[in-house]
């Protein structure tokens, strides 16, 4: 074990590779945070569409989620890697490709969380809202969604952990996240054991910390039902 390789490259690994502040676009968090936000927005629409009455809305949304949940993320990343330059006529930087792929892919999983969250709101709530004279849209916005969102939070945190780990796959198209940063340093220093163990610990600290947080949220919500 020779930890000087970590100490000497700490700045590059953490500030550039993990957080994403530095001379060029990269970073695990810089990819993961926008991906979860935009993925959630798209996921809400798809999740709501899956519960729509009209089959013209419901079926495409179902196909979307089932498709992306049945295909490996690596495959989806390669798809966007080829498709985006084809449709735009010019190539996007790795960041754009990776972000698009993650938003589209994660939206399928987030849509399932949204759907489950909405279905977890008791039917009586809808009936009570209708009885007070609210329209369907008003019921959704003022009664169902606020309660559903609250029920979703632990699952969303868990999904963010999954996403954070998945962003390591962006390195296969050359995006410099924490994993790629470790690869770059390793190519120069040939210290795979120290480097990969170090980034494993960094990922672990984030994921484990958040999973503890998700569990405490779950317990708190279980004690005080909405």
């Amino acid at each position: 074990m020779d930890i000087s390789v970590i100490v000497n490259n700490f700045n590059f690994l953490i500030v550039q590779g993990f957080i994403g502040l530095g001379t060029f676009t990269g970073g695990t968090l810089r990819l993961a945070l926008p991906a979860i936000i935009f993925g959630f927005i798209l996921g809400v629409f798809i999740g709501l569409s899956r519960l729509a009455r009209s089959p013209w809305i419901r079926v495409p949304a179902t196909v979307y989620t089932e498709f992306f949940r049945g295909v490996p993320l690596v495959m989806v990343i390669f798809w966007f890697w080829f498709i985006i330059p084809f449709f735009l006529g010019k190539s996007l930087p790795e960041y754009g490709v990776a972000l698009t792929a993650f938003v589209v892919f994660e939206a399928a999983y987030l849509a399932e969380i949204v759907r489950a969250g909405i279905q977890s709101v008791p039917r009586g709530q809808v009936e009570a809202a209708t009885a007070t004279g609210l329209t369907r849209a008003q019921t959704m916005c003022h009664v169902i969604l606020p309660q559903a969102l609250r029920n979703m939070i632990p699952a969303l945190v868990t999904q963010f952990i999954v996403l954070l780990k998945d962003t390591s796959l962006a390195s296969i198209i050359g995006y410099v996240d924490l994993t790629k940063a470790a690869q770059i340093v390793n190519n120069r220093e040939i210290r795979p054991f120290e480097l990969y163990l170090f980034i494993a610990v960094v990922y672990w600290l984030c994921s484990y910390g958040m999973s503890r947080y998700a569990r405490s949220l779950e317990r708190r919500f279980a004690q005080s039902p909405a």
Partner: protein
Amino acid sequence: MSYHFDWSVLWTGQSGTWLLQGLVTTLELSLLAWLLAFMLGIVSGALRTAPIPPLRWVSTFYVEFFRNVPLLVWMFFWYFAIPPLLPESLQNWLFDHGVEFWAGWFALGVYHGARFSEVMRSGIQSIPKTQFEAALSTGLTVPQAYRLIIIPIAVRLIIPPITNESLNLLKNSSVALTIGVAELTFQTRQIETYTAKAFEALTAGTLIYLMLCLAIAAIMAWVERRVAIPGMIAQNRAGEF
């Protein structure tokens, strides 16, 4: 957009062979990794409910450490960092027998073993204690209660989440392309490189994955229905996916 589709690239030349080889490697890798993961999952899942604290700590450490680090990092770790530390004879054997395959197998199996373990544990813990007590009150001994009541219920309960996890394992086997295992995604990329027909190659790979996943899900749903205890399980799962 002026893309000339030419689907024949998929069956002319070597493409067909490559796809088939990729599919076989994906299945081999997934199946062997699944066996490893399943064994690790059962053992560590059971140990996590065991009344012996040190065993519980070891299995908790295993589960929490391995499932909270990206699979890709594990692939790199087992492929780049570990072989140089092994004894020379084992190293030679590995380099003669496809070190990337075995590193990928180990990474995939150990990572998913930690995830299987959680499924096993929650399966055992989700059985109401009253089942156990009722079994004892009818005169069964503790091993009989486990063998005849608890385990048969637990196995049925975990079929849906185990199916889900098995599909995740199959899809995650594609990560092994990063260390050079010639599985399905790898071969898809190879066809794309040789023929410059990205759409056709990616479509073929994607469809094979989709069909594999759908087939496994269908088989497992059939198994679940076949072994279901009438009126016992399958309710209260409306919101689950």
